[in-house]
């Protein structure tokens, strides 16, 4: 590995790790919010460097075209969330929902989460990746339970138990992959490193790979939030601090998805193993349709958008399950657009809940009148997430649907059905919240809106004109995914 790439990839893991310690030692919450913001910004800048240096592997970290996409996306959202989180936390301290000690802990966990996610994305071997995903789970569990209300504790507990079971199944799959690789690659690290695994995958015992993939799919799939292992997701999103809901939806689900994709590539490389596509398609469609139905009966605004995340992770898993250059491209684009849009929505939702003093949808009315900036951002976000043109999600959903029609027309029927269901549900809820006679505000909030605007304008830009650089970049990755 060349020295600058080594430096960059280590910085991506190292900066958050150092920052986590720094904020843990910093008692003043405003200053720790600034450290949090600067560290996330620096990590993002380093991630941008990855775009210009030549990918290589070596050491315990490695960089290739696939994980660059994930790293850039997650460090960007990590950065904008830290901007948003500063104003959110300010308000929580003023209203006394959080103490300065809580916030110190929260910032330390936030940076630990960033560190764990970057490590999971950049880890060069399957064991280290597993450990990183586990650490990421632990840190988010601690943040979800931060308000210490019975509901928050229950959500954290449920997330913890289901997450742990998922993680345990993923480890079993990881061990099986090692056992499949060991006769070919010999004992030791070589049989766990992505690059050597990919090279020798055609020679692995296919039956072993099959069993391993089922465990990995169920294990990491739990963390992706795919039905029927999704039960933790709505609670964790609804009860934790809103910046964490944004990070969960925007980043952590993607990290788990990344793990699934890597193992999918491994199976695709082995001709005798099962094709992993149908399993992903089934789970994806199940998530999409289940979540779309569930959207109709939600009474809690954060829960509503949590179910929408399940729906979209279903679409993404479906697209990657279809495979092929076009569907993979659509999946990647949809993942990027969903992360940006959903975190923007959670940014507005967090402030809306602060202003209204409630998360109940029934008590939130007429936002566009009483809080124009927040209200219209929510409208824009929802319009984007339900896939109306000319925004980015329209493009990616259109690509998913059209590539499905071209190859498996029958599968397109449940897909379109699910999309329309979700469309109706979200539109229905949105009109109630955004328009009509405004409900009473409980408090004022100094909202920092620019993270929302930044995300939404990126989504709009992608919908109108996707720069050719990005297109070729995503096309390369799509080809890599097979």
């Amino acid at each position, binding site marked *: 590995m060349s020295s600058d790439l080594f430096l960059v990839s280590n910085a991506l893991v190292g900066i958050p790790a150092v920052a986590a310690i720094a904020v843990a030692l910093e008692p003043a919450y405003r200053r720790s919010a600034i450290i949090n913001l600067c560290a996330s910004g620096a990590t993002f800048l380093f991630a941008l460097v990855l775009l210009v240096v030549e990918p290589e592997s070596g050491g315990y970290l490695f960089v290739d075209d696939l994980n660059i996409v994930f790293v850039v996306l997650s460090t960007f959202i990590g950065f904008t969330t830290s901007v948003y989180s500063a104003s959110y936390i300010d308000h929580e301290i003023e209203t006394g929902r959080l103490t300065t000690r809580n916030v110190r802990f929260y910032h330390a966990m936030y940076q630990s989460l960033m560190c764990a996610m970057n490590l999971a994305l950049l880890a060069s*071997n399957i*064991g*280290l990746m*597993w*450990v990183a995903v*586990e*650490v990421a789970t*632990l840190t988010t*569990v601690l943040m979800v*339970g931060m308000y*210490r209300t*019975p*509901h928050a*504790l*229950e959500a954290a*507990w*449920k997330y*913890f*138990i289901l997450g*742990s*079971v998922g*993680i*345990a*199944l993923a*480890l*079993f799959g990881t*061990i*099986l992959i*090692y*056992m499949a690789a*060991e*006769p070919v690659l010999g*004992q*030791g*690290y070589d*049989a*766990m490193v992505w690059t050597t695994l990919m090279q020798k995958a055609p020679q692995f*015992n296919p*039956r*072993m790979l*099959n*069993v391993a993939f089922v465990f990995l799919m169920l294990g990491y799939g739990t963390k992706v939030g795919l039905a029927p292992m999704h039960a933790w997701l709505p609670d964790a999103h609804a009860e934790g601090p809103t910046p964490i809901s944004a990070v969960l939806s925007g980043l952590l689900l993607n990290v788990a998805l990344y793990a699934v994709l890597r193992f999918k590539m491994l199976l695709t490389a082995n001709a005798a193993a099962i094709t992993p596509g149908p399993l992903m398609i089934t789970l994806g469609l199940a998530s999409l349709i289940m979540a779309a139905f569930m959207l109709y*009966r*939600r*009474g*809690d605004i954060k*829960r509503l958008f949590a179910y929408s995340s399940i729906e979209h992770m279903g679409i993404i898993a479906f697209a990657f399950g279809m495979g092929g250059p076009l569907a993979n491209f659509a999946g990647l684009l949809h993942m990027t657009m969903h992360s940006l849009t959903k975190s923007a929505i959670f940014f507005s939702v967090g402030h809306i809940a602060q202003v209204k003093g409630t998360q109940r949808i029934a008590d939130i009315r007429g936002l566009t009148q009483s809080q124009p900036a927040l209200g219209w951002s929510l409208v824009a976000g929802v319009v984007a997430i339900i896939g109306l043109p000319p925004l980015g999600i329209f493009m990616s959903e259109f690509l998913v649907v059209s590539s499905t029609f071209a190859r498996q027309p029958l599968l397109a029927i449940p897909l379109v059905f699910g999309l329309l269901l979700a469309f109706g549900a979200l539109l229905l809820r949105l009109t109630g919240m955004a328009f009509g006679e405004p409900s009473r505000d409980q408090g004022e909030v100094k909202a920092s809106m620019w993270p929302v605007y930044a995300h939404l304008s990126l989504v709009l830009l992608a919908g109108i004109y996707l720069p050719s650089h990005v297109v070729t970049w995503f096309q390369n990755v799509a080809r890599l995914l097979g």
Partner: protein
Amino acid sequence: MELLTIDIAHVLAGALLLTSFMLLYQDRLSGLINIYTLHAVILSLSVAWQAYYQDAHHLYLTAAIAAIFKALIIPFSLRHIIKRLRIHRTVEVVGGVGITMLIGIFLVALSLVVMLPATASADPLSREDIAFALAIVLLGLLMMVTRRNVVSQIIGFMSLENGLVLAAAGANGMPLVVEISVAFSILIAFIVIGIFLFRIRERFDNVELSELDRVRGGRS
């Protein structure tokens, strides 16, 4: 000599599986903790035997972690917790022991059917160990599903995790086993501290999960 070595490994793994079955039907919390201690001791012996057989010294460390952390510290703190929560005399209603055992036997058969053909080419020692390990993992999951009490569920999870450590130790020369077992120990420590610190009893009156369900009423 070779055969004897393999036999001893199988006896230990089989004993671990049997202990998993004992966990399934034990309805007293204190009894459950005792059996879990036994589970951890057998795991530690089994891993130590693998370390000896594979001549992998780092596995001795994993065995030591299992012995000290899982067989001493965890049972000790769990006993402390159930005393503090005054549930140490609780007799849990374990519904349908017969059916649970039958499902358990079915799961063992399933794991043998799945794993043995898949690992036909592997080393005989790791081959059967991984089948046992899968059975232990599935039995742990079964226990988590059938029990309503938080402490029993955690013991189910920990027995599941023991199965994973057995699998990792059985995979010839797998690196990172120590790191993984440390990471898991942290996870378990968090769970145990979680029950205690968050004082689920204080918040919910009882550690029954049905009580947790009650909290969810009125939300959608």
